[in-house]
């Protein structure tokens, strides 16, 4: 097991390096100088040159990358152009809110997905299966930002039950696990949970169907096992793949939260990314994307290791 973990970690190093390179280059694929966007239109040549030197944009690209990477490794992602605050602390604070949202959404989406997937796979081609697969296909097809708007229309505008935007009363930044704060979490969490719910349902349904058609299930039944015990075998066999899919979905929720967070003004990493894009705050844009991508890589690594630890077949291959 330790050997497997070590091998996986070694494999991650080049990926992390490439991710850093992509994030660095993102700023430089824009035509022209990265500073053009933030400089006032009437800025003098001297001021532009001065800023270029201050940000190091006058040096050759590989040197810039080396310096940027060196600082990033020491936890320095530069300062936000808009606020002047360190990028890393801004990003980490926002990521905390995104994690809260993702975990809430995951607990709803995964529970429903596992439940629908198992019963749909078990009662294949019955009406139960049809209802569950219809819910799943709607879940994976719905534009979630639109669903968010519809939820706001129903529960905030029409019924006036839940708040439409924000993450707490009075716009305060501090999150608390009380009802006053939870009210703000319900709509974004349900909206976020819909896609993972659909994907988990579809995966688990296919898995359950495949496993039930295998010979060993026949043997278990022939041996006289009760259906509940057969079911336990099905779950055991489906677990590693289901776990992998859920891990990936959690990663998508953390990294792809920008649309939902924009709809609900949820103060997470997605909303931060949104403001970085529209204020042309390039260090913040670069830093947010880097942190989110690294989170995603780390999460995938964890899922791989967890998967290997519950399924001995993976380590051997």
């Amino acid at each position, binding site marked *: 097991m330790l050997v497997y973990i070590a091998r996986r970690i070694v494999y991650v190093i080049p990926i992390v390096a490439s991710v850093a390179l992509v994030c660095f280059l993102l700023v430089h694929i824009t035509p022209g100088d990265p500073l053009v966007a933030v400089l006032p239109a009437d800025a003098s040549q001297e001021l532009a040159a001065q800023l270029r030197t201050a940000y190091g944009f006058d040096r050759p690209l590989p040197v810039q990358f080396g310096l940027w990477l060196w600082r990033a490794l020491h936890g320095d992602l530069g300062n936000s152009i808009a606020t002047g605050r360190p990028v890393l602390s801004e990003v980490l604070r926002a990521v905390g809110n995104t994690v809260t949202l993702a975990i809430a959404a995951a607990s709803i989406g995964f529970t429903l997905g596992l439940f629908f997937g198992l019963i749909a796979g078990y009662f294949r081609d019955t009406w139960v299966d049809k209802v569950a697969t219809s819910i799943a296909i709607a879940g994976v097809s719905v534009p*979630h*930002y639109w669903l968010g708007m519809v939820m706001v229309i129903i529960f905030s505008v029409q019924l006036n039950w839940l708040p439409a935007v924000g993450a707490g009363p009075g716009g305060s930044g501090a999150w608390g696990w009380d009802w006053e704060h939870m009210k703000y979490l319900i709509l974004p969490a349900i909206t976020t949970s819909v896609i993972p719910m659909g994907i988990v349902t579809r995966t688990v349904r296919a898995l359950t169907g495949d496993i039930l058609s295998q010979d060993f299930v026949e043997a278990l039944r022939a041996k006289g096992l009760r259906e509940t015990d057969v079911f336990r075998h099905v779950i055991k066999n489906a677990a590693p793949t289901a776990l992998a899919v859920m891990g990936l979905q959690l990663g998508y929720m953390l990294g792809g939260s920008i649309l939902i967070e924009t709809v609900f003004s949820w103060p997470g990493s997605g909303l931060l990314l949104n403001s970085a894009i529209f204020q042309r705050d390039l260090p913040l844009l670069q830093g947010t994307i880097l942190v989110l991508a690294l989170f995603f890589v780390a999460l995938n690594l964890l899922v791989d290791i967890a998967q290997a630890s519950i399924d001995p077949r993976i380590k051997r291959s």
Partner: protein
Amino acid sequence: MSAITDTALQAAPATQARGYWATVGRRIRRDKVSMVCAFILVLIFMSALLAPWLGLADPYQGSMIRRLRHIGTPNYPLGTDELGRDMLARLVYGGRLSLLIGILPVILAFMIGTSLGLVAGYVGGKLNTAIMRTVDVFYAFPSVLLAIAISGALGAGIVNSIVSLTIVFVPQITRVAESVTTGVRNMDFVEAARASGAGPFTIMRVHMLGNVLGPIFVYATGLISVSMILAAGLSFLGLGTKPPEPEWGLMLNTLRTAIYVNPWVAALPGAMIFAVSICFNLLSDGMRSAMDIRN
């Protein structure tokens, strides 16, 4: 005489062995869900294509005095938007850009990804490693984040949004194409072609392409739904289409301010995205099971 000929003509097809694609076509035509979805999609495509000839109102012509009319208002069957423009006309015209920016990236990625995957899978060795390890890097980003990062860096615009979505889908299609090609590469008929002196390019084009295209195509049609949602999502964020163009994602964005005044009109563009996306998903599912001859 003529009676005999008729019988002979009618009997002829029954004895003929049906080809693979003919079987797939027949199976999909029997699938009611797929057919309904195909019909809805054709309807939306045709109305978008023929929009100027459908006698609709001008989708750009607004009026301050008739802003945000409700659904069912005489002359405005689907109401008006925040600038008093006819919603029905804008939804129909909106299909043009929305479908273009949603589907074109998948077509481009299908062409690029299939070529890359075919070459990587057939040539193998160092070239395979180079292509597939590059592809792996893009898998280190969640696709929404990657699309937004690239569009955000390139700036708003239709072309940039198409480019960024193409970049998101190329690695996914390359992976599928590579694995399908690797599976076919060592089959006897490829060996036979090689033995008879065919060059690598001829083998890839003549012998491999036809065998790998089916699964890649089905995978790509499944991506259209994601692409539609993401493309409209980019416009929704302000990274795609620019006003006053009618486009579903952008319309949803500009109508957000109207949800307290006229909520259901504001939700209409999203319903269009949802309809197209779910139809493509169901059609792709239908195609997948029609092509799976085992059952």
